């Protein structure tokens, strides 16, 4: 009898909710909850979200997908400023994270609202650190990463009399000194460029420093940190010795450079393999190779986080969804779909990942290779607000200007001035 009454109440509850199933957030106990999630480019979440709905019948998920990262993050910041309109779960890319981490009060602390069984140990240390604000707020669960390796043209290195076998080539990519030295040999023998652009090399070197362009006191480090200046001098000098192809990364000319064999080596995060394959095209198949060495140790370029903004009406449920999506099992599925390299410790030991090969790069086990590179990253660099913008709008353009004939000294001044404007 009692059971019957409960069943009746439950049924009534269900029908009541069925009526307004379409409208947002009808409330708590037993009712249907509508969650929204915002992502950009391809996260590979479509099937996973359906799976989550099946597992949790009371949750309905709407997925907002934006094609490009730039407009997506601009919208994200605008909606954060407006304090309305954001999804319950938002994806944030590494490069844009420093701006967001500077305002942790706009986000829920995942350490408080997230499921208690989700611990920082799920992720690589540096990935977890990168998603945490300096006041300790855990802003984002890590999704994917972009561990760095070196890609190179076997045939071009051979032609210059340099080793080209993935093992034998490693000493060339041991340190930045050996890398630029090999570059000099290559330029001398072939008269062609060693790398695509000075800014691509400089960014990788910059990322290996302990502190980024802006330190923990929100102070610009460009002038105070001698290491940055040393990197600058080293890179611009190599560029002036003919090592750079002077191509602006991701420009049509850069794309063309892959086809023309305009440069022999390329700093290669895991996702770059797809770019190389697409731009170099079938006519260059079998010429590119990748090796698990990177000058100066390891590094990371790219990857994202899932965060729950304070605006969310259902922070707990949103955190649960974010936690589930960033679990190793789910990220492996996303990896199989899109190639986004997982950031979870357990996922890096999965056979599905380790046995993953890439036919364009001579069937090398890229899963194993990049998992090893991911372990080489020692710690997350501290990046203050504006870090990504300084790279994109201060140092990179200034390095391009040096490639086009500006003196390294004048270029440095241009970079410092632009960085000061950005840092405010």
């Amino acid at each position: 009898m009692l059971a019957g009454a409960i069943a009746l109440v439950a049924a009534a509850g269900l029908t009541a909710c069925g009526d307004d199933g379409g409208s947002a957030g009808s409330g708590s106990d037993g009712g249907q909850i509508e969650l929204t999630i915002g992502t950009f480019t391809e996260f590979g979440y479509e099937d996973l979200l359906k799976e989550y709905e099946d597992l949790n019948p009371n949750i309905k998920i709407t997925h907002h997908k934006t094609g490009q990262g730039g407009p997506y993050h601009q919208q994200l910041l605008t909606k954060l400023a407006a304090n309305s309109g954001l999804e319950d779960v938002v994806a944030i890319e590494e490069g844009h994270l420093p701006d967001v981490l500077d305002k942790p009060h706009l986000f829920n602390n995942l350490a408080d609202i997230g499921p208690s069984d989700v611990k920082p140990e799920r992720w690589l240390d540096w990935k977890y650190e990168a998603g945490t604000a300096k006041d300790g707020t855990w802003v984002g669960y890590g999704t994917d990463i972009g561990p760095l390796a070196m890609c190179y043209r076997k045939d071009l290195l051979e032609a210059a009399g340099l080793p080209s076998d993935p093992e034998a080539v490693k000493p060339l990519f041991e340190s930045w000194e050996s890398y630029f030295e090999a570059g000099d040999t290559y330029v001398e023998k072939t008269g062609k460029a060693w790398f695509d652009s000075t800014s691509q090399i400089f960014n990788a070197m910059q990322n290996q420093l302990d502190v980024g362009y802006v330190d923990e006191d929100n102070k610009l480090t460009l002038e105070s940190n001698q290491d940055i200046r040393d990197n600058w001098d080293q890179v611009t000098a190599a560029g002036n010795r003919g090592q750079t192809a002077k191509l602006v990364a991701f420009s049509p000319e850069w794309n063309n450079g892959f086809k023309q064999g305009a440069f022999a080596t390329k700093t290669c995060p895991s996702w770059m393999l797809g770019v190389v394959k697409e731009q170099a095209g079938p006519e260059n198949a079998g010429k590119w190779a990748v090796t698990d060495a990177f000058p100066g140790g390891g590094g990371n370029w790219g990857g994202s986080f899932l965060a729950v903004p304070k605006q969310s009406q259902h922070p707990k449920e949103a955190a649960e969804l974010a936690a589930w999506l960033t679990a190793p099992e789910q990220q492996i599925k996303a990896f199989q779909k899109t190639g986004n390299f997982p950031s979870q410790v357990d996922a890096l030991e999965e056979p599905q990942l380790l046995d993953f090969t890439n036919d364009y790069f001579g069937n090398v086990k890229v899963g194993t290779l990049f998992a090893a590179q991911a372990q080489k990253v020692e710690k997350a660099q501290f990046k203050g607000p504006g870090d990504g913008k300084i790279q994109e709008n201060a140092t990179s353009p200034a390095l391009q200007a040096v490639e086009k004939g500006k003196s390294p000294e004048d270029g440095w001044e241009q970079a410092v001035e632009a960085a000061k404007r950005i840092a405010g």
Partner: protein
Amino acid sequence: MTSSVDTDAERAPSRAAPAPPPPHAPRLTWRQRLSVADAKWSPYLYVAPFFVVFGVVGLFPLLYTAYLSLFDRELLDLEGTWVGIANYVTLLGDAQFWNALVNTISIFLLSTIPQIIVAIAIAALLNTRLRAPTGWRVGVLLPYVASLVALGIIFANLFGPNYGLVNGVLEMLGFERIDWQANRFASHVAIAVMVNWRWTGYNALIVLAAMKAIPNEMHEAAVIDGAGAVRRFFSITLPLLRPTLIFVVITSTIGGLQIFTEPKLFDAMPGSNNGGSSGQFQTVTLYMYQTAFETQNLGYASAIAWVLFLIIIVIAVANFLLTRRIASSGVAEDGAR
């Protein structure tokens, strides 16, 4: 049946009238008053939607931008700090702003002047007897229909310093390669070509419509007076195009000084607002956009917007006066004769 009812109704007030003489003017019925109000106020009601929409999306943002330009406010700050005219003072000493302004004016001159001259020439050609005139007219408008983003990508490819078609052709003809990205003036020319490609045909059609409106008798009279085609063009066609030319010049001034998409897409770095490695083709609108949404300094960006607004007004007025002078000198000559 109906007529009897009508006469009854007419009679009714006249019967009541004699008793008290009306104190003021005869009182209007509710219906009459409504009809007076209708005639008086309805026109305003009908044009109101435009002004309401304009007020919401035009005037309000304009005024709010002026208000915002007096604050120091970052995008993620919910409130700004009052700084008075400090933003404007900074702006006057901002080298990047002056650099952007020079770029803008340079690109504006490189695009507007050739564009209008060529547009008039094309219109004159289209005004001659052509087979399939509609086909030609649609033809000159085609670049305007094409997507601006697609055009930007194609032109950025054509003007690529290393592998671009333009440099390939230059080299084939024995000229030196030009770095269309890094060289300041060359980049302005490349962007102006993009603008001209898109807008010349559009302006040509407007000018053509004005040419068609010139009465044939004037040309016939001139022919009888012995004027040749060139003479007729400069003494009849051009002076009578004056109102249209003023319109075309002012719209291209407004458009030319706000040029944004072309330089943004021309930049080799995708999505960049830098206008080249040293800001060599960063325009004022690009700088404003960068300040607002990249540097996230809304107050300063608002100040840039207002200064640009004032500059556009000044240049548009100057152009208006100039065009009037140039076009009227022909008329004056005619009158003197």
